[in-house]
């Protein structure tokens, strides 16, 4: 590719787009993290090697239960190679233990999302993209998260997004 061409294209493009419209603004609140269970990153991580007894699949199996033999004869199913909400919360503790609080919050949101089916996750993601949803639709998703899936942190997060999108004109214009 010609770099000269790229630079020229950019200059042309920016000349065309010299005037952009700014917009107004408002507030919101961050997410909180949960209480610790006393895991120590130095002695308990990686969990698979150091604390295997704490790691269970959503179907109640241990890591040792997931063997090649069982995979071949069909005893291991796709739902057996998924992470459980409990494990995600343990990993959040490890993350907090090394001072990575935002990462820990992400893992706690993830723990809640394990309850939501794959297809619905993809739909919610699309609904959160700009101009896809009305405020009411986002609030309905938040209610669904909170009451159907007990995903309270995520529900608050989606409600916050709805407020921000409203203030910044990123809701779907009907």
């Amino acid at each position, binding site marked *: 590719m010609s770099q000269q061409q790229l*630079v020229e294209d950019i200059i042309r493009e920016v000349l065309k787009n010299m005037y952009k419209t700014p917009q107004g603004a408002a507030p919101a609140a961050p997410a909180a993290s949960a209480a610790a269970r006393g895991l120590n990153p130095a002695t308990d991580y990686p969990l698979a090697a150091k604390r295997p007894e704490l790691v269970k699949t959503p179907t109640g199996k241990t890591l040792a239960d997931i063997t090649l033999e069982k995979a071949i004869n069909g005893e291991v199913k796709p739902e057996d190679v998924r992470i459980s909400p409990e494990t995600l919360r343990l990993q959040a503790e490890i993350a907090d233990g090394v001072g990575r609080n935002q990462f820990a919050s992400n893992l706690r949101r993830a723990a809640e999302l394990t309850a939501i089916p794959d297809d619905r996750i993809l739909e919610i993601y699309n609904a959160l993209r700009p101009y896809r949803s009305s405020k009411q639709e986002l609030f309905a998703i938040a209610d669904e998260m909170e009451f159907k899936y007990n995903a309270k942190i995520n529900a608050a997060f989606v409600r916050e997004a709805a407020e921000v999108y409203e203030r910044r004109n990123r809701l779907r214009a009907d």
Partner: protein
Amino acid sequence: MRKQKRFEVLAARPVNQDGFVVEWPEVGLIAMGSPNDPTPSIKVQNGQVIEMDGIARDKFDFIDQFIADYAIDVSITEKAMAMEDTAIAKMLVDVNVSRDEVVRLVRGLTPAKIVAVLDTMNVVEMMMAVQKMRARKIPSNQCHITNVNDNPVLIAADGAEAAMRGFDEMETTVAVVRYAPFNALALLIGAQTGRAGTLIQCALEEATELQLGMRGITAYAETISVYGTENVFVDGDDTPWSKAFLASAYASRGLKMRFTSGTGSEVQMGYAEGKSMLYLEVRCIMVTKGAGVQGLQNGSVSCVGVPAAVPSGIRAILAENLCTTMLDLEVASSNDQTFTHSDIRRTARTLMQMLPGTDFICSGYSGVPNYDNMFAGSNWDVDDYDDWNIIQRDLKVDGGLRPASEDEVIAVRNKAARALQAVFKELGFPAITDAEVEAATYAHGSKDVPARNVVEDIKAAQEMMNRGITGLDVVKALAKNGFNDLATNVLNLLKQRISGDYLHTSAILDKDFNVISAVNSRNDYRGPGTGYRLSEERWNEIKTISQAIKPSDFDV
């Protein structure tokens, strides 16, 4: 005008085919320090940021708000912001100040303040800082595995070779979108053949990428882009909230992921708001931090032509990598897309990350010839394998690769191609012939392999998704055909998503599937004699090149 001969020679040099432009701050064509960049400031009231970098809270755009609420530690911000820029910069390069101490302080800094700190540093100081601030103790490297025809046999063979040569992560993408499931499957098998535990991804549109991950065909994701201005973010069809949700969605399925951003993207997309490239990029890094993502691919990435065209642009790229490490994130430091015709210039650009070492020096290095690279070419490719290895040897530096013999390369390429052949047969996909296996084994690129029936392949690739084929089906297919070792490797890769250990910052896997991350392999650099040093074993691997003559070669 009569031509001066020397100027004729210089004009013909590769570097003079590159594009350069003078600084033009009004439109964002400036690497660092635009006069329009905000002046650092912070005001906190009742535990909430009410002003950041000269903007009052009620005027925040959605990026400002996300950063203020999720990426800034209000408990220390006023103290941190009160420090002199050079005082913070000196802490970054001072071997007597620990990484942890710097990380704690940086949590309180705003985007404009971080930019001001970085702008006091030259590239050598920045490299010293990266050496200390990189999250994982051991540096590593990532590659691209693609080809113009999406030939799956070749992807498996190239993936196997690249994994064996040392890449801990490998990324594929597509020429034709509907080929994606096959590309991912072929790379999965190639990776586990070349070196057990190699992580793979397939770069696609966000939702599809997540779907392949959920199925257990890929092991991580990276193409989750964030941007530094609200307009560009929206043009990219996302917001910090949608991207943060996506990040949690990945983690909820036990999948490692990182975001992607880079200087120049806002200029290229036409909405830089007159801000410097680095200022906008620091906002991206802080959005990533706020979203709780473990890491970021940055270093301009696919927009490298833009910073590379302006003064100090390559320095700004190093600065953005450094900023990522300061925020305690994994950095996959680009060195990927082609940006210059000059071999000298492309090498100089890469030394910035290769010498201090980053979590992934390239993201990625082309594990295929440049004509087969579907990420628009890379700064480094397979033709440079020996150059890379010899630079490692010259400088005694770990760039993540190792010399490989022709015999071992032939062996792993062949095994991967055969394994894919067996899996295709087992799953009822269009046959891979022995001739194709042979061709892929000995090929340099897609010009050396026979064409496949694309229509049939694409149909089957769609079927693979419709039938709900998962990683477990791949395990079974491999085992049934005598590839028990590979079946075990794929299963072990799937098991990573049960424990979630590899979700953590800068995680890679060793050949026994042990996680090496910035939790159990934390960078403890504190000056000479500390931090990552080449082991005797690793140094022997690097220095043993077949090109070196030995006294025993002489019969005197």
